[in-house]
């Protein structure tokens, strides 16, 4: 069993705004092992991106702990050691704005090397060429500005930049959502190749469950700041338990009859996704849940291990020892 490289324990991130407190991440716990991919799935307001930004340090956590190789790093990026900044990198969602439009590809790739003082100027230059080659881009791209590149190519530069300091963990926030199918395929295969080659761990965030099926080792689904269900990939798709998971799976458009057979029956949700400023009381999903019971609007579900490694947080799956705590209906 590979060791856990990232452990997130009871993570909370709240934002105080004029409209109220946004409970973006509300007691989220998970772990990522070396060389494996944890897929984080969710829609708007689920908090998945906030989890990534808090783990990487763009936000300081409101509560909970983040441990990297057993080292506590529950702080903002400015308080972290340089070694930590080398080991964890992030690839953002929008290739259009994740590269400075006024810099060349070479300058962009060289920045992490300069910051961490890797080698001499000449060695850094050679390394940027090597990074480009790794993502299968031609050398003369070094002198181009990002707006001269296509979306897929920009994302490849972003990935090359993330690889520059030989990190151990890369957070990928919807890296291919804005890209076409064929470019997505190329990039995903490239990422999987790097993972194999360098024993990289990925925290892979996406809303695309079909993509998740082919990329993740474990999947966790988030809704309004909490994790609803988490399981190893195969188990997750074979036996989705949480009503939200089933709704999500049934909504994905697929292209073949085999995939259709895999999906649960179509559940058309009613109503909008609530905003994380106004999380519904009790179970956050109860306003849209098809199996919602009366107690769901008052009681909080707890995470229960239903099968080996398969956890669900739903009042339909009560914790085994606490049955007597639930109110009688």
């Amino acid at each position: 069993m590979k060791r856990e490289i990232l452990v997130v324990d009871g993570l909370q991130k709240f934002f105080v705004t004029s409209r109220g407190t946004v409970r973006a991440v509300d007691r989220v716990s998970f772990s990522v092992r070396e060389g494996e991919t944890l897929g984080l799935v969710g829609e708007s307001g689920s908090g998945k991106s906030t989890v990534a930004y808090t783990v990487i340090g763009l936000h300081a956590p409101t509560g909970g702990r983040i441990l990297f190789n057993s080292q506590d790093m529950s702080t903002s990026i400015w308080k972290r050691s340089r070694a930590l900044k080398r080991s964890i990198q992030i690839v953002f969602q929008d290739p259009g704005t994740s590269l400075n439009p006024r810099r060349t590809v070479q300058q962009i790739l060289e920045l992490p090397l300069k910051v961490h003082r890797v080698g001499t100027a000449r060695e850094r230059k050679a390394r940027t060429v090597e990074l480009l080659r790794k993502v299968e881009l031609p050398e003369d791209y070094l002198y181009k500005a990002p707006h001269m590149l296509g979306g897929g190519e920009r994302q490849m530069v972003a990935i090359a930049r993330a690889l520059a300091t030989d990190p151990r963990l890369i957070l990928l926030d919807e890296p291919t959502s804005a890209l076409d199918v064929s470019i997505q395929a190329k990039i995903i295969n490239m990422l999987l190749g790097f993972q194999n080659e360098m024993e990289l761990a990925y925290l892979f965030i996406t809303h695309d469950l079909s993509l998740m099926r082919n990329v993740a080792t474990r999947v966790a689904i988030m809704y309004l700041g909490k994790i609803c269900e988490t399981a190893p990939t195969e188990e997750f798709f074979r036996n989705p338990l949480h009503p939200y998971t089933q709704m999500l799976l049934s909504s994905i458009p697929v292209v073949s009859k085999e995939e259709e057979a895999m999906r649960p029956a179509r559940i058309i949700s009613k109503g909008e996704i609530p905003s994380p400023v106004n999380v519904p009381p009790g179970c956050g999903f109860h306003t849209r849940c098809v199996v919602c019971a009366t107690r769901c609007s008052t009681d909080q579900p707890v995470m229960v291990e239903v099968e080996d490694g398969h956890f669900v947080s739903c009042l339909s799956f009560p914790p085994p020892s606490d049955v007597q705590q639930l109110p009688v209906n």
Partner: protein
Amino acid sequence: MGDPILQIDDLHVSYKVYEGRLRVLNGVALHVERGQRVGLVGEAGCGKTTTMRCVLRILQSPPGRITGGAIRYRGTNLLRVSQGELQRIRGSGISMIFQDPVAALNPVFTIGDQVCAVIRHGTHKRLTRAEIRRRALGALREVQLPDPDRMFASYPVQLSGGMRQRVCIAMALATEPEVMIADEPTTALDVTIQAQVLWLLDRLVQDHETAVVFITHSLGVVREMSDWVYVMYAGTIVEGAETNELFERPLHPYTLGLLSALPKLTGGGIAKGIPGRIPDYLNPPTGCRFSPRCPNAMRVCDQERPIWTRVGDTPAHEVACFLYGGEGV
């Protein structure tokens, strides 16, 4: 099968840039029957949005220019009609829904104002204010917006993405057009909201008996939303077939490549994708535009353009590829 209500013949469009002219559309031809749901699928840059902008003549010109072909709506060539005639057709004959509902709705006018404006301009007979308001409320009710009266007085910024898109759908159908063009209407929405909106759109379109041209890059969505699918690549239509037929028996190598590159819910990894990049529109390949990337390319593919050929009658299937004839009658 009567006369097609919308027919595009041999459309050529080019864009002027610093380096020369980009030959973006290279003989696009497609047709839509009354009440038919037609899907137009292709990746970014293939020209699908450009094609539809030509239909309503909202192509940005300069730098764009229609250099050849015809677009016939009920037999009339839209490229040759007067501005006045075009204004009359826009809205009441052909209407359009755009990808980004935020940009499509004017933030400083209420929903009610905007829907009423559409009805006022799109209906030929003079209507009283009360009648317009009545129709507007009816349209909002039809798209299942909660509390239409309150919605009438709301501003777009107060609505969620899904609701805004429903308003756009209401506006597009309020004048009972014969053809509706939907350009990636759900791409910006969450998965479960997308399922809601698509379900609604489908039902409404069937109720109103409107023909739809559904543009998307998502093969899964087009499979659910259309009776007939056209596949577009680099400014040409490469394949067209009844929906089920296309997905069960794809013929064109590009279609095959696309389908294989899609991540499947059933797992199994993602294929490598299609090697190469979309052609340079400045100097597009003579002959078939896909041939530089085609695994089955033959010598004739580089020299001549394949002709659109019918290769199946029931179910209907057409393709432009030398592997299946294509040398012309």
